[in-house]
């Protein structure tokens, strides 16, 4: 498709002075955040609704987005959380039997801006080379961009005359965006409480064997995706969400068969999550535990290990992970900007690295010698991505049964 004439001109300014030009969609407003990229070729709706993207502007590397619209069933949380979405092309005429809405409208209704038409591969290469960047997604106001200056080529190629001051201002704003590590993003997304009930049938997959019937699993909500809960309820478990700050005693009083520390946004070593780490350290001694993504990092911190920031993160649905014990490779969905440092895992913690990334050798899973603790950096619940890793939920189900 070509640019839609009534879509405002917008730009993406990075803190290091790099600027990309496109057109706005979704909510026509400015946004700020850390710019990252995701290489999944499908699953834009699941990505938008993954709370782990809180505080981030997400670039989708696959160029055609909104091909199949948006459907209520594919929500991974109650609404989209990301700060902004960057795509090469926003499909004007989506087609899929389940589509009830277009991405444009969906983001607009949720007050989230998007930008399309820009060279997303160049953005990706920039982030790959220079690491993650803070950025501002800005909608050019009419006084900056008079009608006669709106030639699509001049705009796209950054040659529009007279916009220099505005662009510089956007870059300056990008330099003042609060870094992800400096705010409590988990607190913003930890919104679920009470019993989780499936909002949609488990289509199109057949139900797994019901092995955890009626077992209660407490789900510490650091920004969890629905399909994690789904993967457990479909095995018969009862999932109860608690806020991320819930104290150990409160969880204990709920008498769970197991506890899940789920995914979520941001830096695991921020102060706001410290209490969750402490709680997890106690839970670990008593309950079967499953950690996913941020939850995995929290478990590692609880075990005394450290985490660090990756240059540009792992975000996509094609990441190979090797199970060290079996040697088998699984293709996984990943979404993380931080990692557990293998060397920092205390020898006496009882933890060992169980899974590694075949791309960069980083830690993708931990197991404890004696305790029933499983933790994976990747997303076994997929959505989006390969369904190859549901076995993690089978293993956890066995631990709580």
């Amino acid at each position: 498709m070509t640019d839609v004439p009534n879509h405002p001109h917008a730009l993406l300014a990075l803190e290091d002075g790099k600027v990309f030009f496109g057109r706005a969609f979704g909510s026509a407003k400015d946004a700020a955040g850390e710019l990252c990229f995701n290489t999944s070729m499908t699953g834009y709706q699941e990505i938008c609704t993954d709370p782990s993207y809180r505080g981030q502007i997400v670039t989708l590397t696959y160029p055609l987005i909104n091909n199949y619209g948006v459907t209520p069933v594919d929500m991974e949380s109650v609404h989209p959380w990301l700060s902004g979405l960057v795509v090469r092309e926003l499909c004007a005429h989506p087609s899929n039997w389940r589509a009830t809405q277009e991405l444009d409208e969906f983001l607009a209704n949720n007050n989230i801006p998007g930008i399309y038409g820009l060279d997303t591969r160049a953005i990706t290469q920039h982030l790959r080379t220079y690491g993650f960047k803070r950025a501002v997604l800005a909608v050019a106001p009419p006084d900056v961009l008079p009608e006669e200056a709106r030639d699509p080529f001049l705009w796209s190629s950054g040659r529009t005359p007279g916009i220099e001051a505005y662009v510089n201002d956007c870059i300056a704003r990008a330099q003042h965006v609060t870094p992800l590590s400096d705010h409590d993003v988990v607190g913003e997304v930890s919104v679920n409480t009470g019993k989780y009930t499936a909002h949609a049938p488990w289509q199109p997959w057949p139900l797994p064997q019901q092995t955890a019937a009626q077992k209660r699993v407490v789900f510490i909500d650091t920004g969890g995706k629905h399909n994690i809960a789904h993967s457990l309820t479909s095995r018969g478990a009862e999932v109860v969400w608690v806020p991320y700050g819930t104290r150990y005693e409160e969880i204990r009083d709920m008498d769970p068969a197991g506890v899940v520390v789920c995914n979520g946004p941001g830096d695991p070593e921020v102060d706001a999550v410290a209490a969750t780490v402490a709680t997890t350290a106690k839970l670990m001694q008593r309950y079967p535990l499953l950690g996913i993504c941020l939850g995995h990092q929290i478990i590692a911190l609880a075990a005394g290990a450290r985490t660090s920031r990756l240059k540009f993160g792992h975000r996509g649905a094609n990441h190979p992970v090797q199970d060290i014990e079996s040697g088998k490779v699984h293709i996984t969905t990943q979404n993380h900007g931080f990692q557990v440092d293998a060397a920092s895992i205390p020898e006496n913690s009882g933890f060992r690295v169980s899974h590694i990334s075949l791309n960069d050798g980083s830690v993708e899973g931990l197991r404890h010698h004696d305790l029933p603790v499983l933790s994976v950096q990747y997303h076994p619940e997929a959505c989006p991505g390969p369904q190859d890793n549901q076995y993690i939920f089978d293993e956890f189900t066995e631990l709580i049964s």
Partner: protein
Amino acid sequence: MTDRPSKVLIVGSGPIIIGQAAEFDYAGTQACKAMREEGITSILVNSNPATIMTDEDIADVVYIEPLTVPVIERIIAREQPDGLIPTLGGQTGLNLAVALADAGVLDKYGVQLLGTPLSAIQKAEDRELFRQTMTEIGEPIPASRTVNSVQEAEKFVEEIRLPVVIRPAYTLGGTGGGIAHTPDELRTVVAGGLSASPITQVLVEEYLLGWKEVEYEVMRDSADNCITVCNMENIDPMGVHTGDSIVIAPSQTLSDREYQMLRTASLNIIRSLGIEGGCNVQLALDPHSFAYRVIEVNPRVSRSSALASKATGYPIARMAAKIAIGRTLDKLPNPITQRTTAAFEPALDYVVAKIPRWPFDKFPSGDRVLGTQMKSTGEVMAIDRTLEAALQKAVRGLEIGDRSLMWEDEQWQRDPEAVWQHITEASDLRIWAIMCALRRGTSVAELARRSHIDTFFLEKLAGIRDMEQRLLTESLTPGLLWEAKRLGFADSQIGTLADVLPARVREMRKQWGIVPVYKMVDTCAAEFEAQTPYFYSTYEIENDAPSLTAERAAVVGSGPIRIGQGIEFDYCSVHAAWALASAGVQSIMVNSNPETVSTDFDTSDRLYFEPLDTESVLNVLDNEGVPPTIVQFGGQTAINLAEPLTLENVALAGSGVSAIDLAEDRRKFEAFLDRLGIPQPPGAAVTNVEDALSIASNIGYPVLVRPSYVLGGRAMEIVNTPEDLKSYVATAVQLSTRHPVLVDKYLQGKEVEVDAICDGKDVLIPGIMEHIERAGVHSGDSFAVYPPRDLHGHIEQTIVDYTTRICLELGVLGLVNIQYVIFQDEVFVLEVNPRSSRTVPFLSKVTEVPMVRLATLTMLGKSLAEMGFAGGLWPNQPLVAVKAPVFSMAKLRGVETSVGPEMKSTGEVMGVDVTFEAALYKAMVASGLNVPAGGTFLLSIADADKDAIRPIVRQLAAAGYNFMATEGTATMLESMGIPVRMISKRLQGTPNVVSVIRDGEVQAVINSLTGGRAVLQDGFYIRRAAVEMQIPCLTSLDTSRALATALSLQQDAYLVQPLCAYRDDR
């Protein structure tokens, strides 16, 4: 996997036919490279000499021999390999491996099938075993039942839903079958099908009308690691063979749930079959629910896997070969990034479009409707960041004239129903018909309803139409031009719509700074820095491909495989790239064909995947600082670019435009030969009927007529009367208004052909090839033998002399192909082509002269002498090699099969031995012209040929063959004392000449032509029946004589040895 093998046999796929093209040369070549990397000795056998895989520096030992069980057994006995990889040589290679296993050959010699086990092949190939396996793992396949009555059919339909497809058992080409949408139709069609079936049986199958067709390319290793390399979605929904569908990668209309559901199914399937290597899973997906069906599994690398490899950068065949010898994906590096492993799934950040290349420009009478029988000969692929641009570039890559998506058939103006016919029935013109309908205001909804194509794709096409409208009405601004380029509009399209010359559009673009950038195909959507030199053009901001800086040269490839321009030219392009590399010059390859070795990312220093039109090639050259460009190896495609590129100040490496032009301009060429005192058949170039008639009456009939500047003798004909000439000129001149029609005296003599290399000083002639058929049969459809069998010394000297003088005087630099006819002991020049020809690989292989390398290096300024070669005729080798053409007529309904001046073959094979008879026999067997001992020939011979057929019949009778013949021919046989069964004509009751063929009573047909083109004569039906029954059908007495000679050979009286052994056998 027990032990790692040390010596492995790789079986190729034989000649290029419809359904089995260059992709298997690519696969085999990758496999050989993989073996070399692993330190394993590779033994390669293929009958097709025009392949890179049969190069002696690709495999360790090369056999160019027929692909039959006895031949392979002798190779196995001689080489004692410990393993055989069955899954890289297409269906031919797979069937052969199974036949070798079944015949106990593999057990006898202790040869292990490597990779995918026999059980997996059987489970995938055997209908019933496949159904069982899918049922066991719960994967749905289309419901079907074999029934013997209408009642049974009705009962079955109660269980499933209408519509259903009815396929009668044992009828040819599905006659008598059909689709039933209503209970009434069900009764009618089933009843019809039952009566059409000789065993009164039909298969009733769930009809997946309008379901999406999706494919997954899956890999699995011996450790059970499974990945999907790529998925693809066909624009054409279920019903059109995937090889004939327009295919997009990755899938476009599948949400993540649908994508993953089908991915999981594909992994379940590859696991349940136990495949170790690559596999292709075809699925149908209901557009209105999560319902899907598994349609087919190919337990081997395929055309789709070649496409997936080129679409993603992931080398499936190479990895499959490594898996076959026991490597696992996690231990193999990703050859693109060099940092990550092969155990991952490529992420694309672009869209890929594949469009098949159909032969209907050559076979206008052929049935264009697309269905379950594949009809295309090749395909093009294009990559861009928008679907519209990928599609439009692919359309241009087809090279059907200058046809863009704006083309419309003239008939459509007058007949709107004709447009709908192409849309609803699906023909090769469907996409143009849809554009036409959109331009006439048809809604997307209406098109979706009648074509079942997803609105997603139709909306994209509607968007292209909208841009056409804007270009027609708005003034051309940088913004409009930019947006049009981003949708893949060519400068020529923009020029036409905006009423500006294309050259002016290009000028404006460059002036405004609107030039394409080149993005990398890196398997990982830019997540990792990659080392690959594989690029595509797009209109974006940042360029991944800054110009190479060292000395460099570009090679223009040959585009899609089509009749007249086959894999031979890809062979030449690949060798040109290698020759450049050997001279320290960086090679830049431009090509649009995903099947080939030339588009393998490690063939050249830079690969640009682009259509081969002037604009795209010029853009690439601009991006590379306008390097010297070689147009000599890419067939007519590349040669056609010589003039436009030269006009844009591109320096051609090798023969210049003047040489090309001189050779193709009849008048200039005549004057040129006159000056040299070299004769050619009298004739002239004409532009109107009057001139044609007067020339023909001057030189005398028969005359050979053809338009100049065409491919594979398109529209070439032998004309016997003024009336025929009139009708020919009336239709042919339209073909090309820029160029005249040539009318030449037809000399029915012996045709010989040479390929030569000229460095400006010396002319090296690696060999002379003699055609078995007399002049009049297109050289591409002729059997050719090297060295010539009975060429008098003085004739040979004359040929060498003419060739040398023509090359030097014409200013040839590099390769040239010259065809001569020897008529009444005099040598005439028929044609000079200052470019590589289809026989270059054949001749390179038999003579061991590295023809393309020498030619390329001469273009870089090296002399033949410097390279250790001299001028003149290269010594004849102590072997005989016969090149045989191979046709795909069984796949093309309604096409006349007889050979003539217009080329019809799709591929070729080579038979090589130390005697002519043995070489001929092998060529015959390899090309499928095998007649079982004691079989029956059906003869229908024109009176004029009766004398000539006598010795042929005697020879066949002596070899133990039987005969049936039409009346006149039968009388002749009786008079010779040869037993014959007389058969009546087609419309004179049964049995008749057609029914005996259909009933399988005949094993070969010799039918000499009685003249005239009428498609309704008996001869046409006899020939069609023969090709449909897949029995040899010869229309040339020369070929028949050769066949008789070959069939007289004592069985097994041929050698089986590596190619080099024939040359060394002095």
